[in-house]
């Protein structure tokens, strides 16, 4: 009897907002046990959070975006810099520079899906696309400022670089700066070839700042990267043989957008398994678990088993490509759960496409 009285007194004095700190597993279990199951953020288990997107806000960037998903806020800026081929150590002419370029200006919406990257893509070989995320901005109490990148920041950056290479989102031909000598400089007798020469590459520095940490950082960071690359404008660049360097035009009409391949969208999920102590107290069934899509920071800490599925439905919802499946921790998920998560990831792809089309047309 005294223990029951003390528990009752404890319940009366503890505010409701403190339950997420005292016993997060019990709080999440109490919400999901309802019929129908709800989350503490008042969502259904398969429901992602709404996405807000702004593009083109930063003045100094070639492309920029701000993505806000629940309490997570990511600002992404893309800066394009020029890498002359003379700066590349042991640079050898690859097949890209031998391509026929009789048309000097490409159409803006030209899509050439037959254009191959080749076995040794210059983007990977020379690190032409450089994504980095910064979490040490005071975005949460666990990420203090002015520190070296944490393991989580390094992991997210590496995952984004790997996904950029796997999906081949950026085309090498968009980053090439080609110089075609005038025909009168061709002299067959002296053996001077007047073919097009690859003089420089554009290097895209993609930097992401996490302003607020609210869970599912990789999803928000990748969506910010995707929107910033679609907002990116590269100035018209040419090689000046007299100055021996690359010059650019500052006219906006002459700038061109990147022609990205497809649109991969990652969807993070977590599997919540209640503690055995809770099951014993409530006499519930033993093997109960829930799959939560787009977990927030509170749910991420309660799920021991997390994963991420990247899909691309650019060729139609019925022709979805599963580009990547990641999972870590736990022992609950089987093939049927993965198939269920893929279906939820397709819905997330559709949600992002709607948000992106709205933001880019404004």
């Amino acid at each position, binding site marked *: 009897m005294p223990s029951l009285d003390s528990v009752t007194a404890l*319940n009366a004095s503890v505010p*409701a907002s403190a*339950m997420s700190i005292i016993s997060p597993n*019990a*709080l999440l279990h*109490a919400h999901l046990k*309802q019929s129908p199951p709800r989350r503490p953020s008042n969502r259904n288990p398969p429901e992602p959070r709404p996405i807000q997107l702004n593009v083109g806000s*930063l*003045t*100094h960037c070639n492309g920029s975006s701000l993505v806000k998903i629940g*309490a997570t806020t990511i600002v992404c*800026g*893309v*800066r*394009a*810099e*020029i*890498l*002359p081929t003379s*700066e*590349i150590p042991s640079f050898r002419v690859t097949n890209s520079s031998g391509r026929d370029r009789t048309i000097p200006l490409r159409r803006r919406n030209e899509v050439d899906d037959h254009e191959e990257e080749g076995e040794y893509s210059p983007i990977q070989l*020379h*690190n032409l696309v*450089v*994504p*980095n995320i*910064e979490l*040490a*901005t*005071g*975005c*949460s*109490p666990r990420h*203090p*400022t*002015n520190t070296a*990148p944490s393991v989580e920041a*390094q992991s997210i*950056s*590496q995952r984004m*670089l790997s996904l950029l290479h796997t999906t081949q989102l950026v085309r090498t031909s968009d980053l090439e700066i080609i110089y075609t000598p005038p025909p009168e400089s061709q002299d067959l007798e002296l053996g001077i070839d007047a073919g097009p020469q690859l003089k420089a590459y554009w*290097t895209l520095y993609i*930097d992401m*700042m996490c*302003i*607020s*940490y*609210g869970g599912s950082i990789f999803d928000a960071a990748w969506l910010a990267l995707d929107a910033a690359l679609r907002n990116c*404008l590269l*100035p018209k*660049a040419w090689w000046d043989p007299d100055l021996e*360097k*690359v010059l*650019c*035009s*500052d*006219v*906006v009409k002459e*700038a061109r957008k990147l022609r990205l391949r497809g649109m991969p969208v990652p969807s993070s999920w977590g599997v919540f398994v209640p503690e055995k102590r809770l099951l014993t107290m*409530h006499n519930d069934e033993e093997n109960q678990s829930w799959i939560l899509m787009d977990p927030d920071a509170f749910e991420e800490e309660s799920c021991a088993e997390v994963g991420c599925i990247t899909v691309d439905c650019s060729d139609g919802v019925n022709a979805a490509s599963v580009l990547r499946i990641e999972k870590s921790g736990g022992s609950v998920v089987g093939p049927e759960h993965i198939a269920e998560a893929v279906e939820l990831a397709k819905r997330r792809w559709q949600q992002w496409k709607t948000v992106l089309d709205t933001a880019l047309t404004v």
Partner: protein
Amino acid sequence: MSDRRRINGPAGTTSPPVFAPYSQTATATALRQRVRKPNELRKIFLQTGIVPSASGSAYLELESPPEPRLSLVPTSSTIKLSCSVHGPKPLPRTASFSPNAQLSAAVKFAPFATRVRQGYVPSQTEKDLGLHLENALKGVLLPDRWPKSAVDVAVTVLEGEDDQGEGDRFAGLGLFNLLAAAINVAMAALADAKIDCLDLLAAGVGAVVPGPDSKPLRVLDPAAVEHDDIRSSCVVGYLPSRDEIVELWSNGSVSTQNANTSIGFDEMVDAAIAAARGAQTVIKEALVESMTRNQMAGKKPSQGETNDVEMKT
């Protein structure tokens, strides 16, 4: 050179794009002149509560009039800052005993915040700004309220205001405008964290520029791209109700000869104080609005719309 904790770029050095000279000459003549009155401030957008997991947070943006973007070389620049406050929190166990709260302030530039991209290595400018910001905030906090505690203030510069011409470093007027904005956004975040302060600290920038007939003219809230020549400028952190200056930083020179016709140092400081008073009204309005929003959010659970689930034991 190579940072093993980050994804590095190409092995060779990349350089920012160089724009063709004939186009840049035409663009340079179109530099915007100041259309505001000498005592008119730029519009400030201030919002609190952007980081829910922080004790206090704020976002500040200096709005510039939208203009059609005809050139890839930006001719106008704004300031976009985000600030978060964590604390008061216990000091680490290894720290020595302190009867006062330990305030630490840091200013961090995003790599895309400047005209020429900077890397992730902390620069001397960030340390200078951090020290000045810390100095200003220490003048407004009551440290003996929280013994053995730490307060961390982090300001992230998403977009900085460049000085015209020099795109690779922050110096002079752009630095002062950035410090004033950082002090204002940090004060809003401290108030959002409900940390007791002496007053609502506000910062402003004043400058002396050549006016008509080449006589010196005092201006409030100068922008670097709007003035070809700036004789002197200064930034103050000011407590309006106490009429107290907690931070003062100036550069350039003003003449004290012919005191009847010239503008001296005191007049320039007065101009910066007037700019700080204007900024304080913006901070006050933002805090009142956020307080009203919190009160309205607090009333909803009592109407039966609570999402709490009763814990059964």
